[in-house]
């Protein structure tokens, strides 16, 4: 069974979206855009799958209200992961492989501005031994950045280079929250947010949503001129105990990349919410300097929680569908200091 991405849409990445936490206001226009672009209606979709977080929304069952965006009547085949929607895409890919559906619409949403994001993310940590100390997500990333600098794997300047490259690339992405031409000297003159991280090293706080359309074999060819065929799809998780991990690399990202086979990649859309993680992931996945990194600007220019990973795969697929790349990868991460990683390899034919 062949499965392809045949469409991608994303909401504008915004610091404070004029939306509620349940995603409906962001999702309804996205579904409309995506379905219309392929001449489909919601009733044509065989399987719906989403990714979101109750803690981000500050309530139980936030995804239940989001089902209203589907207009689930008559009843639909639907599922949800409490993860970035990139993993919902994985579940949908598996569903299509079983032959139980021939199309799937996958979506993710997150209103990161609803709370204090770095403290909310601290609640992902071991509730008995670690979370009570409130190590926030930016501070943990800073520890990781410092370890890599001490090991000579990256420098503050190389990290700033990533920000410069990402913001320039985002100029061509109308959904991006941050874009522009900046120079390394100006960036390095800014104060630390969490030493050694400066503001440009950290993804912005973003409200947003993303949606991706999948189809199998002939259905994909019939609906899309140049489908982005999924040739490899893998994910792995590492221990959360940051004292037991070598934080300067990512075993799970390396394994996922090997399983998905990233040889011959032209373009990579990497979900790196911190500049040093862009370098770390590139090294871990073995991507050489010929690979074009994050033509969308990546998460550093807009990081809607629980949708940003899916948006990376959607952006990579867009490069294929538009004919700008022959083989691309989309990557997603989750958990403190890149604990969990997913790689999706896409190909045009």
């Amino acid at each position, binding site marked *: 069974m062949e499965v392809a991405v045949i469409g991608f849409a994303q909401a504008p990445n915004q610091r404070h979206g004029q939306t*509620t*936490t*349940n995603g409906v206001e962001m999702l309804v226009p996205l579904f409309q855009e995506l379905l219309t672009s392929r001449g489909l209606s919601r009733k044509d979709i065989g399987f*719906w799958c989403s990714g979101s*977080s*109750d*803690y981000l929304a500050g*309530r*139980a*069952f*936030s*995804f*239940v*209200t989001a*089902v*209203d965006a*589907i207009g*689930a*009547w008559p*009843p*639909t*085949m*639907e*599922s*949800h*992961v*409490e*993860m970035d929607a990139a*993993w919902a895409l*994985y*579940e949908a890919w*598996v*569903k299509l*492989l*079983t*032959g*139980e559906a021939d199309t799937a619409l996958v979506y993710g949403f997150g209103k990161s501005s609803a709370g204090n994001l770095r403290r*909310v*993310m601290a*609640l*992902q940590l*071991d*509730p*008995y031994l670690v*979370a009570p100390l409130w190590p926030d997500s930016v501070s943990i990333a800073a520890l990781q950045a410092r370890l890599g600098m001490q090991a000579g794997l990256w420098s503050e300047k190389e990290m700033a280079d990533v920000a410069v490259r990402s913001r320039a690339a985002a100029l061509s992405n109308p959904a991006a929250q941050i874009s522009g031409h900046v120079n390394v000297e100006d960036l390095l003159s800014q104060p630390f947010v969490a030493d050694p991280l400066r503001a440009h090293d950290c993804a912005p706080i973003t409200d947003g949503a993303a949606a991706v359309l999948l189809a199998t074999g002939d259905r994909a060819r019939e609906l899309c001129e140049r489908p982005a065929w999924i040739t490899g799809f*893998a*994910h*792995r*998780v*590492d*221990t*959360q*105990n940051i004292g037991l991990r070598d934080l300067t690399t990512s*075993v*799970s990202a390396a*394994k996922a990349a090997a399983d998905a086979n990233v040889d011959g990649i032209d373009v990579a859309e990497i979900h790196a919410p911190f500049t040093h993680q862009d370098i770390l992931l590139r090294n871990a996945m073995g991507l050489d300097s010929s690979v074009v990194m994050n033509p969308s600007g990546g998460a550093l220019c807009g990081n809607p929680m629980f949708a940003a990973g899916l948006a990376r795969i959607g952006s990579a697929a867009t490069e294929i569908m538009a004919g700008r790349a022959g083989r691309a990868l989309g990557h997603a991460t*989750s*958990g*403190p200091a890149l*604990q969990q990683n997913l790689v999706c390899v896409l190909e045009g034919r």
Partner: protein
Amino acid sequence: MKLQAAVLGTGQTHHTTRRTDVSIAGLCREAIDRAMADAETSWDQIDAVVLGKAPDLFEGVMMPELFLADAIGATGKPLLRVHTAGSVGGATGIVASSLVRSGVHKRVLAIAFEKQSESNAMWALSINPPFTMPLGAGAGGYFAPHMRAYIRRSGAPQHIGAMVAVKDRRNGSRNPFAHLRQPDITMESVQASPMLWDPIRMDETCPSSDGACAMVIGDVAAAKASSRPVAWIHATAMRTEATFFAGKDHVNPQAGRDAAAALWKDAGITDPLKEIDAAEIYVPFSWFEPMWLENLGFAPDGTGWKLTEAGDTEIGGRLPVNPSGGVMCSNPIGASGLLRFAEAAMQVMGRAGDHQVPDARKALGHAYGGGSQFFSMWVVGAAPLA
């Protein structure tokens, strides 16, 4: 030809109000260790782990599967976290089975848990989201009007709810893992218990439990390599509808009807009452037994209560429903669906102990969630689907 998959083994914890003897990790591992032993499976044979649980607010940990990665044996492997409200336990089993039936993996571990004592589920369910009427009444207050409507619509006599409670609690007394084990419960004692949300009396509602359930699902080669009986997965179904909309039938939701119709069709079943030997149905309040018997197509509309009243749903009856005691005896919410799926598997594997239905060959596992809007179900059999 679709690939087949089978449950190789199951495991569960002892369920009780407060498992203060274990952490969340310890609770999960207790169920997993039992499932791995029951499935004769070693850790190096597990390709992936799927974890399901209901809202994170129930324990106060955001995405707990991340900190649990080591304890649930997921480190270095693919880990998925499913959350589809109360139906999540069922969805967890279905996602795990899809990973095998798609050909992606050979053996997958499914684990679902809830440690309700870490928080207060009733109030976690009673938050005030924007633009939605606050309930402030937990699940009982939400569902009671639906049962009241069922009674009015079907003309069911008032004692049906108590009959289900007595049957399930007595069944639970035969299940060593059940939270509530009440062999001496009677119709009189149930009917004398306090009214909580009319028509739901104290003894007609599920407990609040800490507990976990795990199972190993394998491909055909793994099933054939097993020295013990396995439970072949004949069909699975999931359906969703919106919570509220004009014309929604809360008593007999279309999503449940559609899921059941698809399930029976895929499992090659034309007369479920005749062909299913045991059913583990998600009945958190006693009145849901007759309601779901109709929704699932075991009885025509308005007549589900007659099966209950005739004793057909007891062990030894035409369709034993919840021989394990069901949700009425143990309700670790996120695990309750997977428990239904596991208990169905245990029946056809002949490993249900004192609550075994004799000669069970085909069994149903069922779960529902949200405002009666998410449904997940499967049929397992002692033999592969022909």
